[in-house]
């Protein structure tokens, strides 16, 4: 078996996030960190537990019910399902490489709709900007 294949099998998922170009920190802070820090402790706990379970998964482990594939105008994007009693949080991102997920934007879900409604449009634009070098990403460790 090739070493690269062994590494893929053994290595956990790599998590990345868009950086906030307005961040004054060096290097720039990620939008994921900013979102996380702004959440209440119960949301933080829920998100951490979900990610701690997702990251070690192999192969096609990233799917429902904790990772949702979005459709229609959101095609190509995926949501992490963070269900709380009062709010359904939906961090949005995409699979930016093999065993790699990049967080781009953050929404909530209400009545089966993402809020803000423009989150997918924003995320698609960010993917394009990342590819063109206009926006940047950083690895995020959990």
């Amino acid at each position: 078996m090739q070493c690269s294949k062994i590494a893929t099998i053994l290595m956990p998922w790599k998590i990345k996030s868009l950086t906030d170009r307005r961040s004054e920190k060096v290097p720039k802070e990620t939008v994921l960190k900013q979102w996380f820090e702004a959440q209440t402790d119960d949301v933080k706990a829920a998100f951490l537990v979900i990610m701690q379970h997702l990251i070690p998964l192999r192969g096609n482990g990233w799917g429902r019910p904790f990772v949702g594939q979005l459709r229609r105008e959101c095609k190509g994007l995926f949501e992490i399902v963070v269900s709380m009693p009062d709010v359904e949080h939906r961090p949005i991102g995409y699979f930016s490489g093999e065993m790699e997920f990049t967080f781009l934007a953050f929404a909530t879900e209400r009545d089966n709709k993402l809020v803000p409604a423009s989150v997918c449009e924003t995320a698609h634009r960010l993917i394009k900007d990342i590819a063109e070098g206009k926006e940047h990403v950083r690895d995020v460790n959990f």
Partner: protein
Amino acid sequence: MSETLISKAGFVSKLLKSKKFRDSYCYELIRTGTSFQMRSLREERGWTQADLAQATGKPRSVITRLESPKYGKLSLASLLEIASGFDVALMVKFVPFSRLVREYEDLSPEALSAKSVSDSEEIAKLQEWATSAQRIDLVAALKRQTATQLKAIGTAMGSALRVIEGTNAGVVQRRLDFDRPRLIASESTAGASPVITREGTDTWQKIQKIS
């Protein structure tokens, strides 16, 4: 350069300062963790949700609901039924957070694995445990030794010790290796290692220094 969402130190600080975080983290490990583990155990067995439903005698819709992150009403009865469906045990135990964080440090599929009681590996482990109970008896027996006997054992300090079991016919049944039992006397004295026999049986156990 990578960013750390929350460092270990930051996590512990959060645990120590925020009861809400502590309670939520504990709750989520059970709610979310159970959902992940149920799916992992199904995949380990090549089961669909329908297969698990059949094994537990529950409707498939119930299994879907139990694996859903939106469903927060896991009951102990449901968990026991799921465990029974998988033919595994369920542990419910109050633990300090220091043990919780170590227990949940590894959440890989391997760590979440739980073999059925009919699995050959699991049977072998159970059988090994059944015979390894004798080692626990030996340690307990050693603790009951007199100071004189312990001093005799003390000649082995600094070396690995080996316990050899056998019948009175001299056949070695099992070797149990362990390093430096804490009950060994601190003084080092020359002398033969004692023979400890188990009362009421025809087996003996002997401590040997591994050379």
